């Protein structure tokens, strides 16, 4: 197990190293730098000069940049004068995290209920409903769903505010939009796993031993069917990140995604690259946690990896 974790850790760091290196060389290849930007005052220009040593050879700059990133310093924003990228990201993080986590929790609960109901009442209306939701959920993208919800629940019915972020009620539509994909993924997964587990011999055995229907389902079927749900973790993380770009823009939520899209439009390279690194770290961490958890749950995966 320790070998397995160590291997995963090395890959994680290698991927991070490559991402940061690539972003560094891209930022060097781009036209313009903090010095040529007329928006910056001379003091900040001087400050940047000292901080990054841009007059030094490229490899020294590269080493310094890597050291800075390792300490969480992603440079200064070109657009928001004199503010650091990390600071801007941290400031926006809570809103995005709240909407994302709320969507995941809601999606997990509804998705699991839907999946379980579909599996227990296999080949009934519930089952069909779950399958339809699963197909729609992966086929209708957030950027179609968000305006639709905005139009029907926001404008026509007037239940929820359609933009900005002032209190909890403002988070309903963004979270709902994001959760549809979560619901469909989890429901599809849960249904398949439940059906598979229910066909296993040990379930027949449990029933034969006289355990009540509910007991079998809660103690044996559910527990075993939920294990592979771990593999959804990394795809869900990436989905929530990608989704937040769309959803925050449409609902004018002041989160990281909205800020990122804006920085793309004003060509704030430092911000774009910094946020890119931040997103990559999130994704790679999720992937790492998923692999470790899967390794704990299913020993075959570690063994297969160690054999090489």
């Amino acid at each position, binding site marked *: 197990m320790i070998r397995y974790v160590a291997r995963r850790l090395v*890959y*994680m760091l*290698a*991927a*991070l190293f*490559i*991402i940061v290196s*690539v*972003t560094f060389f*891209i930022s060097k*290849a*781009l036209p313009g730098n903090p010095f040529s930007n007329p928006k910056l005052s001379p003091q900040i220009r001087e400050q940047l000069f000292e901080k990054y040593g841009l007059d030094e050879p490229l490899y020294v700059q590269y080493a310094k940049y890597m050291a800075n990133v390792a300490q969480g310093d992603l440079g200064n924003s070109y657009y928001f004068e004199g503010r650091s990228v990390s600071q801007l990201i941290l400031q926006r993080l809570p809103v995005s995290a709240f909407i994302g986590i709320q969507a995941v929790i809601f999606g997990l609960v509804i998705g699991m209920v839907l999946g379980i109901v579909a599996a227990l009442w296999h080949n009934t209306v519930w089952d069909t409903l779950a399958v339809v939701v699963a*197909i*729609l959920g*992966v*086929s*209708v*993208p957030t*950027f*179609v769903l*968000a*305006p*639709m919800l*905005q*139009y029907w629940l926001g*404008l026509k019915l007037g239940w929820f505010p359609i933009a900005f972020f002032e209190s909890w009620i403002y988070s309903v539509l963004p979270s709902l939009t994001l959760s549809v994909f979560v619901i469909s993924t989890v429901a599809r997964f849960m249904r*398949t796993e439940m*059906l598979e587990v229910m066909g296993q011999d040990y379930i027949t055995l449990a029933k034969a031993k006289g355990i009540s229907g509910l007991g079998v389902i809660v103690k044996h079927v559910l527990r075993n069917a939920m294990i592979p749900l771990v593999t959804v973790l990394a795809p869900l993380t*990436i989905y929530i*990140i*990608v989704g937040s*770009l*769309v959803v925050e*823009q*449409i609902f004018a939520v002041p989160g990281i995604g909205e800020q990122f*899209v804006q920085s*793309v*439009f004003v060509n704030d*390279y430092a911000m*774009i690259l910094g946020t*890119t690194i931040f*997103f*990559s770290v999130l*994704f*790679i961490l999720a*992937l790492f946690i998923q692999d470790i958890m899967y390794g704990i749950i299913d020993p075959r995966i570690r063994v297969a990896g160690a054999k*090489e």
Partner: protein
Amino acid sequence: METRYRELDPSLFESADIDAYEGERIAGPPVGFWRDAWIRLKKNRGALVSLAVLVLVFAVAFVIGPLISSHSPYAQDLSQRYLGPTSKFWFGTDKFGRDMWTRVWAGTRVSLYIGLLAALMDIFVGVVYGAVSGFLGGRVDDVLQRGIEILNGIPYLVVAILAMIVFDPGIITISIAIGLTGWTYMARIVRGRMLQLKDQEFTLASRSLGASGFRLVWKHLIPNSLGLIVINLMFTIPAAIFAEAFLSFIGLGIQVPEASLGSLISDGAAELRFHPYLLWLPSLVFCLLMICFNLFGDGLRDALDPKMRK
């Protein structure tokens, strides 16, 4: 229990004398793998309808759509702004008076082109990479697999955005971004299949008859993996179409005046309040495309690999 058993009269039963050789008789002509799959696919109504709709969308986007409309997707006419769907402009006009019918189909062409490109990358990079890695094994496999693991750690979105910053946003840049990242899953699947197949008897037989490595892969291993490759292709395509639409939606993809379904949806969402048709029509076409690809992919998977059926 006893009594009920005795009530049964033996004369009710008749012995079924089946010739032992009867079981060996072949009932029908042998059915090949692809024919068998087609028979299974034909039973799946959802998949067939999806296939038909996809063919129709292809036809309308490339041939019928532009042919039956005299409008250009780019010509602006400020006197004809925001016309709802009419007999002259079937899908209405946008804020510059451009015809939405031709714009929607121009956007669909972009989506289909991206899907096709992703499929080609999957075949020419993913399958080749996976085949080389799985067939050669050993040191080569190790190095190639480490490469994939690192590539997989980088989200496609990041690659796409970095590509957009370095090159000018546009269809070529999107193609590069999708081409760089999309094929890794296919490579993994094909590698796994190669590992499984290369130790089987038919491979050994061919090898002992003197077949070269290339011939082994090309004549035996790839054809035996074809079902899996086709299934995987059908899931790569909608994923790539989605990626392009997403990038265009946030403004990193296709640039004006070109149209993509993603950018049309983005423009439509901005005018949702007063001109909702600008959002509904491209959204409808896009969702239709995605649903059909997903349903057809599901159907194809069930048909080609019944064991994987879920």
